[in-house]
């Protein structure tokens, strides 16, 4: 039996048969016949329409397009404008694209340092005339990154994060629809940092979420991303690509371009749980700030308070958020809360714990005065912290 040797896996030689099936066989039964010439990749060159707006696509590793070599079964991520337009032809009707390959990481490996590079790259593109930015990003930490860019850039144009929950190498992938909707959002009247992803399990529309108000709320569904605390800031219908923005959504041109790319990475997010030992908090000594994901209105057990007081005494900023994720922290209602306030913990309003963490990195990176930093943590900088909790949310 003849076949193409693909790889070694768990001690077996994986061989692709003429029928297309792979099988794993002991290497010793294989005989080398010949090394076929690598398949010639047809160069693709797709014309772009220069009359359309210029968008820049910055890639951090989320793939918009993939290519499959059926001869070997291998899948390759593709990232240049031509490749993307071959895979998703509708994109060519929306804009002209420049592609900036910033990183190729799985998003769980995202770091504050890469956020800084990303912010600088986006800033450069907008300065260079891009009418909108699309950031392709793995979905795991996309919400954190979108929040980070929200704080780091004052943007006059849309900065749209997009990813896919089903890999681009499958016909059912959400990549194409998400990318098309992201491009539509990036050329729309939007003027803030957003995440654009499937609104439901149907291929019918995408939701535009504010970068500081979005959270990945499902491990695998297409519609994993949800706005918390506020309604979504817009939607994009598919395939019509009609963009509708909410009344409060920041419009294109509202803000002047500015880059504030400092971050203090020595910050952490800690979820409180019953029986949590104060010793765990010792790990954060020397940290510039920690965000507590407390229970209910923003509590920890009383036993943690001395250690928290110790941290705030040592100039660690401690911000209280709630693991409930919806609603507002209020530490004035119960004794524990008042004790926490007394220990120097500050209320995180209705911020998401994750957004609060990212904001803290930004605030502590940019404001060295402790009291001012605390005030900034409680102020609404980029829609992350609302004074009012609307009915129905």
């Amino acid at each position, binding site marked *: *039996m003849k076949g193409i040797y693909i790889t070694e*896996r*768990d001690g*077996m030689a*994986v061989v692709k*048969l*003429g*029928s*297309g*099936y*792979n*099988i*794993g*066989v*002991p290497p010793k039964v294989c005989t080398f016949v010949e090394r076929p010439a690598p*398949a010639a*990749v*047809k160069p*693709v060159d797709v014309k772009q329409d220069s009359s359309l707006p210029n968008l820049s696509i910055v890639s951090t590793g989320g793939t918009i*397009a*993939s*290519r*499959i*070599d*059926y*001869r070997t*079964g*291998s*899948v*390759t991520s*593709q990232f240049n404008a031509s490749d993307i337009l*071959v*895979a998703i032809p509708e994109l060519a009707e929306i804009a002209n694209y420049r592609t900036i390959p910033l990183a190729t990481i799985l998003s769980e490996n995202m770091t504050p340092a890469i956020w800084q590079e990303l912010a600088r790259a986006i800033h450069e593109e907008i300065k260079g005339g891009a009418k909108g930015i699309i950031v392709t990003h793995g979905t795991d930490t996309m919400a954190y990154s979108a929040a980070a860019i929200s704080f780091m850039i004052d943007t006059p144009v849309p900065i749209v994060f997009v990813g896919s*929950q*089903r890999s*681009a*190498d*499958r*016909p*059912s*992938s959400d990549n*194409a*629809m998400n990318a098309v909707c992201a491009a539509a959002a990036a050329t729309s009247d939007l003027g803030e940092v957003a995440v654009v992803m499937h609104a*439901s*399990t*149907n*291929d*019918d529309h995408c939701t535009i979420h504010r970068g500081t108000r979005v959270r990945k709320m499902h*491990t*695998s*569904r*297409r519609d994993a991303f949800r706005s918390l605390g506020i309604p979504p800031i817009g939607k994009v219908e598919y*395939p019509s690509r009609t963009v509708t923005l909410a009344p409060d959504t920041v419009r294109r041109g509202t803000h002047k371009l500015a880059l504030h790319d400092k971050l203090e990475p020595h910050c952490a997010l800690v979820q409180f749980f019953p029986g949590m030992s104060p010793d765990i908090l010792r790990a954060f000594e020397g940290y510039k700030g920690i965000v507590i994901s407390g229970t209910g209105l923003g509590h920890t057990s009383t036993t943690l308070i001395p250690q928290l007081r110790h941290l705030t005494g040592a100039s660690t900023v401690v911000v209280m958020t709630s693991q409930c994720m919806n609603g507002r922290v209020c530490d004035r209602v119960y004794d524990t809360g008042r004790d926490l306030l007394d220990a120097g913990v500050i209320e995180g309003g209705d911020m998401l714990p994750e957004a609060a963490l990212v904001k803290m990195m930004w605030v502590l990176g940019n404001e060295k005065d402790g009291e001012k930093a605390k005030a900034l943590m409680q102020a609404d900088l980029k829609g992350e912290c609302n004074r009012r909790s609307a009915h129905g949310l």
Partner: protein
Amino acid sequence: MDYKKAGLVAGIEIHQQLDTAEKLFCHCPTALRETAEHAGEFSRFLRATVSEMGEIDRAAKEEMKRDRRFQYYTYDTTCLVEDDEEPPAPMNDEALSVCLTIGKMFSMTPVPQVHTMRKLVIDGSNTSGFQRTALVALNGTLPNGGEIETICLEEEAAQRVKDEVFSLDRLGIPLIEITTSPCMHTPEEVQKMAEYIGMVLRSTGKVKRGIGTIRQDVNISIAQGARVEVKGVQELDLIAEVVRREVQRQQNLLATRDELKGRGASVDTASAQDITTLFKDTKSTVLKKAKKIHAIILKGFAGLVGREIQPERRLGSEMSDYAKKCGVGGIFHTDELPAYGVTAEEVASLKTHMKAGEADCVIIVAGGSEKQAVCAIGQVVTRATIALSDKPVPEETRKMLETGSSAYMRPLPGAARMYPETDVLPVIIDDARWRAVTIPELLTARADRYAKEYQIDLPYAMQLAGSDKLPLFERAIKEGIKPKLAAFTILSTATELRRDGVDVRKISDDAYLATWHAVEKGQTVREAIPELFRSIAAGSTFEESLKNLAPRVSREELEAIVRKILADRSEFVAQKGKAALGPLMGVVMAEVRGSVDGKMVSEVLRTGIDKALEPK
């Protein structure tokens, strides 16, 4: 017909659903549901992925001709894996074991490390856009010299409800695919092979039974012809006929080509034009509804487009099949016109307008849009050009029509449309596992055993072993029911009731068993089974049915009935003597409506007759 001479080469692929507790790549039950029970719906688009060569598979491309939004029905027995919203679970080990068992029964070699592949399918029947499939075993041989090339373990596709609507209950049910080598040369050989393989599969007791649970695809080619795969042959009895008709089709296509060549026929692509205005006053409902009507001349094709190449199928049908891929309802051609509301005058004016000669055939397509009409004419050109070419039989996947003829479905899929399913880890089949696989008794052997052990006639036993109800029979035996009672009920009673119009499918296995137990315990009698079953099939529970049976007749009552019958028929009894027993049995049984055991009736009746015959 000399099939050897015709150069018939045929192979088959058998797809059989496995009767496992859970699906192949998720933990849902393998239960089929009524679509009315669906609990949710969603809709998706599928798009072909780009291959390394920058090309899209030809079958996939064909599917993409139309922008289709597929709609799916979900159930409380389906999950996010069928929704393509969750990574697949590891491969179902129970299903793999069944495949290994079957492989061993065919003396095959197991694959040491089984890799799950994704096979591109974007007709909507798979929410992912691919079918997961794994090659499990290779190179088998059959006692009759046949060869099994491969066994694959696949996931079943979603059932099409209608058009672009699919039901997810079936998606993911494990399916074994058995592919023979192209080792058969007569239609009958093919059918025998399918029968044998089916018998082996059922011998495992782990395959699903009933309509739609097994499907045969037949690969057929003849000399000068081409390989054609006829898909979806569900009835075994039709396989030979399908082969015969495909041979006939290929031969006719070859002969047609020769005749076209002789005529110097050609496809006049330049003649293609919009003739919508020509039919603006037509009475033909199809043409009236059309937004755009286009036509083209096939020079020298007259008569051949309409000539039968297979029962009820013409070259025109083939062209029509191709055109339908553009979304049109079909084509009209002048070989069949006037017809379908198109008048002789219209045909004449059409021919004049198109400047068609006597030997030419004009093809008309009626599209819902310009794009559709242009696409359909293009397809007609494609198919007509093939008909004229050196290879007038295109390699195709075809679907079987009811009578055994077939219609074009899509091009044969490229072999290379597979790539690894990275979400499923490979499974090792090591020696220990392979050795541990035990082979079950073949149904043929089982029939022999039944005949011997239970004193059932062999043909009857064969029937039983082959029956859907075999698992029920085995269960009955295990529960201590008399084999003959069970066999008789399954093979005779149920069959007779079915012929009588009773919907015996509504009688559950549990109802069968309850009935038998009731008979064994003397709560009812064997003769009452038909009445019980009628009642159950009509919707009553077993308990209700038993209660509503004709009241049990006591021995005293029976004796009174017998006395009356004998008194009424004293002359007859006197005349026939003891031989009156036979005829009168029926009369008494009818009177007691089967609610008395025949043996008792016969005993009482005999006593009564004896008494009547006693000298007064």
